[in-house]
């Protein structure tokens, strides 16, 4: 019997090619999307889950409240917190701290030299806690001694080729210091929130500080230096919550009772986040890297489900639409003795077959599209396919449930026909299932409206961010990573001639040094307070150190006062504030702030100028209160303003000059506008993916509408014939046929608008600077949906309307 059903199912697929193609295409597209999305979600959720032990690891976060208001939340904390927590609370089994430590390293034997990032000073416990897999070296000892470091396999190849790296020295050029390689580890997996290229022993940091005259062992005892990522290993069976409930008391004991904090009304709290949640749910200041967006991932997951649901809804729509055709067969079979159960089984098998064909196509498409999709999603190793078993099971379950459910309904409807009504005379379908079908269409088109409006809003937001006036000019700016190897005493005598020689070149309009460039997060912050009134509270300001040329070169607008000038020897103790800082310090307006004195640590500084607040970072972030200080020997970044002529040649010239003055420093550069716009990459990507899936969802929806409208028209063939005989024009007939569907689409629109508004309103709230959701966006989305629906329906409607009525009115 099964083989009979199977044969029949195959023949049916081939006989009704149009329907089969619509059905299979819709299902296959849906399944492909669903697979791609599940694969993506699965990867995003796989971060930092390398071992069972890591489930017990949490990272600390520090929140600062100034005058009772939340000022910032930071992913880095004080170095003393880890050891103190371990000492005070038995729940804490171990801790490890990471302090970013970017270096220029060289293998003096081969003279290879690179500027390295993603390196940290790390406690010995980091190896085990963070899942660093040593290929060489002893995990218990590798990070115990000062001036030891462990490096990744890739890094080992870079410096030592295929030679053994263990025990070799890596020198820091220009500084009389070198590290001994005490271990080589397998490249840290990409699905970790940390990129680790190398780890230097924490003891190195301690000894370096001591050599620089630190008497208080700050790296172990400081409750003020917040630069340390701190992870805690909790005892087995201890939940983060248990420890978290004890942290307020800890903060009061060690931090909040400090005289200075009390005087300035500063209060700190600590929170914990599980290691595996950092990638998706931690987006605070000073993260170790750009983390994922948990909300976007959840949103994608939802879209995967929705697309799959739309595809099955289509299947239901199309197969019930086909039921008229199948009705006769059902009637005959019943006359021949078929029971309802047998018929249901037959139709279920058909639907299973169809779904399997779709699944097969989807799997092929999936394997072909995975690399493209992953690179679209910005994955660093796009070719790698990663779907955890959990998601595979989820998909399989979804497939089984969807196939069964979408097959059952049509099977019940079709097998329920009474042979008498089917086999004799004109067979009319009952309007019983019509409401359900209309409901399904409302759902589908509601989603279309949502996706179209969502697409428009996402693009407008990205566009808004990219084209907003930043408050300064970053075009045609080449940024060089500054010199690290020249000693402080010799620095200005090297930099000054370097700069002068650059300025002599054609194609170079200006050179400015600074501690930081736009697009980079500012790590240099300090509390500053007004001298008057005497009881003013301290406010944390973001510091930017610049030379004399920075403000004019970047065309930052001065709204009061003046730029730093060599004519004023006092400018070393002068400050330029941005407007945000002016109001943060409690001045009524820039005029009031001008000339006022501020207390910064032990110094008194005078406000000599106010600049218009500029977007140091992307528009997702609010502008921080900022103070600009004169630091002529800033050596982090050199910004070179180019004129448009022959840029590659200019870069080559710059490099030659660089090598002349800074032979020990690698030459690294980037273009500031590209660099700055990278901040919008994730949102642009989100926009693209959103559009892609919106289009696919709408396409699938259209396939369904096409099927349903052709079904509806089939039902009304006779009515159309009569109307035409009675003199209805083609347009009139098309109007009559399209009307019903337009009403449905309109209802969908009305239902979708508030939901869309709510959803996109939420999404926009992640951005400090955002567009308004204008009413016309919905109008456009509605118009597009209706246009799409109309075009889809017209295909069939026009065909029916121009058909010869004689044919449809012949009875037998």
């Amino acid at each position, binding site marked *: 019997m099964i083989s*009979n059903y199977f044969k029949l199912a195959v023949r049916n697929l081939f006989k009704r090619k149009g329907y089969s193609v619509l059905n299979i295409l819709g299902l296959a597209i849906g399944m492909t999307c669903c697979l791609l999305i599940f694969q993506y979600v699965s990867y995003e959720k796989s971060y930092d889950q390398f071992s069972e032990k890591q489930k017990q690891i949490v990272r600390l976060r520090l929140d600062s409240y100034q005058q009772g208001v939340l000022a910032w939340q930071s992913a880095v904390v004080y170095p003393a917190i880890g050891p103190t927590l371990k000492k005070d609370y038995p729940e804490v089994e171990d801790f490890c701290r990471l302090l970013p430590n970017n270096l220029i390293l060289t293998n003096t034997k081969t003279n290879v030299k690179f500027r390295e990032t993603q390196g940290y000073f790390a406690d010995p416990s980091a190896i085990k806690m963070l899942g660093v897999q040593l290929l060489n070296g002893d995990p218990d000892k590798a990070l115990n001694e000062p001036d030891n470091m462990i490096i990744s396999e890739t890094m080992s190849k870079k410096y030592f080729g295929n030679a053994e790296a263990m025990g070799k020295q890596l020198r820091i050029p220009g500084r009389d210091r070198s590290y001994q390689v005490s271990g080589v580890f397998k490249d840290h997996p990409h699905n970790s929130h940390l990129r680790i290229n190398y780890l230097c022993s924490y003891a190195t940091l301690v000894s370096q500080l001591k050599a620089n005259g630190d008497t208080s062992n700050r790296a172990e005892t400081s409750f003020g230096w917040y630069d340390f990522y701190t992870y805690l290993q909790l005892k087995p069976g201890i939940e983060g919550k248990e420890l978290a409930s004890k942290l307020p008391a800890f903060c009061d004991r060690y931090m909040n009772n400090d005289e200075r904090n009390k005087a300035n009304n500063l209060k700190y709290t600590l929170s914990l986040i599980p290691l595996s949640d950092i990638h998706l749910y931690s987006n605070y200041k000073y993260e170790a890297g750009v983390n994922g967006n948990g909300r976007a991932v959840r949103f994608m997951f939802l879209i995967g489900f929705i697309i799959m649901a739309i595809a099955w809804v289509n299947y239901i729509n199309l197969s019930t639409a086909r039921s008229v055709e199948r009705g*006769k*067969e059902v009637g*005959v079979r019943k*006359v*021949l*003795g078929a029971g309802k159960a047998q018929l249901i089984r037959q139709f279920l098998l058909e639907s299973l077959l169809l779904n399997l064909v779709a699944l097969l196509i989807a799997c092929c498409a999936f394997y072909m599209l995975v690399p493209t999709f992953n690179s679209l999603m910005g994955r660093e190793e796009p070719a790698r396919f990663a779907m955890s078993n959990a998601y595979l099971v989820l998909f399989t379950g979804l497939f089984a449930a969807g196939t069964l459910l979408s097959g059952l309904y049509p099977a019940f409807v079709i097998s329920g026909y009474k042979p008498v009504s089917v086999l004799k005379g004109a067979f009319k379908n009952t309007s019983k299932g019509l409401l359900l079908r209309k409901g399904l269409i409302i759902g589908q088109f509601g989603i279309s409206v949502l996706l179209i409006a969502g697409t428009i809003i996402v693009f407008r937001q990205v566009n808004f961010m990219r084209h907003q006036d930043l408050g300064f000019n970053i075009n045609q700016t080449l940024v060089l990573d500054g010199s690290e190897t020249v000693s402080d005493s010799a620095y200005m005598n090297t930099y000054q001639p370097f700069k002068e020689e650059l300025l002599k070149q054609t194609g170079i309009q200006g050179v400015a040094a600074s501690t930081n460039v736009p697009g980079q997060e500012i790590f240099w912050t300090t509390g500053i307070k007004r001298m008057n009134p005497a009881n003013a509270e301290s406010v944390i300001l973001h510091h930017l150190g610049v030379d004399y040329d920075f403000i004019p070169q970047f065309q930052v607008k001065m709204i009061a006062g003046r730029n730093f000038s060599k004519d004023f020897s006092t400018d070393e103790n002068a400050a330029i504030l941005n407007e945000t800082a002016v109001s943060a310090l409690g001045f009524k307006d820039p005029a009031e702030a001008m000339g006022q004195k501020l207390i910064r640590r032990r110094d008194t500084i005078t406000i000599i100028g106010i600049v218009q607040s500029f977007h140091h970072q992307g528009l997702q972030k609010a502008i921080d209160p900022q103070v600009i200080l004169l630091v002529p020997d800033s050596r982090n970044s050199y910004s070179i303003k180019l004129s448009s002529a022959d840029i590659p040649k200019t870069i080559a010239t710059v490099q030659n000059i660089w090598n002349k003055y800074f032979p020990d420093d690698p030459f690294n550069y980037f273009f500031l506008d590209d660099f700055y716009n990278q901040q919008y990459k994730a949102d642009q990507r989100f926009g693209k993916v959103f559009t892609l899936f919106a289009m696919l969802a709408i396409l699938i929806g259209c396939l369904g509408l096409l099927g349903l409208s052709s079904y509806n028209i089939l039902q009304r063939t006779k009515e159309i014939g009569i109307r035409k005989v009675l003199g209805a024009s083609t347009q009139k007939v098309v109007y009559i046929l399209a009307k019903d569907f337009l009403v449905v689409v309109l209802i969908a629109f009305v239902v979708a608008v508030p939901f869309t508004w709510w959803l996109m309103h939420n999404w926009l709230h992640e951005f400090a600077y955002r567009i308004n959701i204008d009413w016309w966006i919905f109008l456009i989305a509605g118009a597009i949906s209706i246009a799409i629906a109309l075009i889809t329906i017209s295909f069939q409607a026009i065909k029916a309307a121009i058909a010869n009525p004689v044919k449809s009115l012949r009875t037998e």
Partner: protein
Amino acid sequence: MLELKGIYKWFNTGNNRTFILKDIDLSVAEGEFISIMGPSGSGKSTLLNIIGMLDEPSEGKYTFMREDVLKMKEKQRSALYKQYIGFVFQAYHLIDELTVYENIETPLIYQNIKTPERKAMVGDILDRFNIVGKKDLFPTQLSGGQQQLVGIARALIAKPKLLLADEPTGNLNSKQGEEIMSWFSELNKEGVAIIQVTHSEKNAGYGTRIINLLDGMIVPPSPKGEKQLT
């Protein structure tokens, strides 16, 4: 073989009750060949459907093989039906996706008969109706007469005691119609009871008894053999 007593069939339309069949009494013996005649809307097909258990009367009693059909459960009725009744339609109603062979085989599948046995039975009947050469064709590749022949073969495959035919020659030309009717006579001689609905006086003549319906009621036979035209 079967007996109908006081069979009524009606529909409620608004406040009115529209009668399709009124107080039908009919008994059919084994081996009879009955032709039901009457104008359009006289209730012929409804009567046939009720006899064929595809439809239920609104009122009345129906005994088939000494069993009260209307009191049976769906399953029992279906079993009874499968065992004793075959149906032939005016529009043939073959399943277009199945070949001639498979169409004929279908009732046996629903009776859970095993494959080798099915093969033998279908082979026999193909042979008997001289359509062996057409067994792998699809219905659309056949002429109307051939399709109806397949329809009859399919109705007979399960060896029913009663063959119900709803205007079996209605879509055929006169030559094809005659052929079908001669098959009916032959089957009847072999002992299969036949009830056919027909408009054709000539076809009705093949039967052993004619029942005339008018407005849902059986017209008592008139001695002159009054003609009922459609």
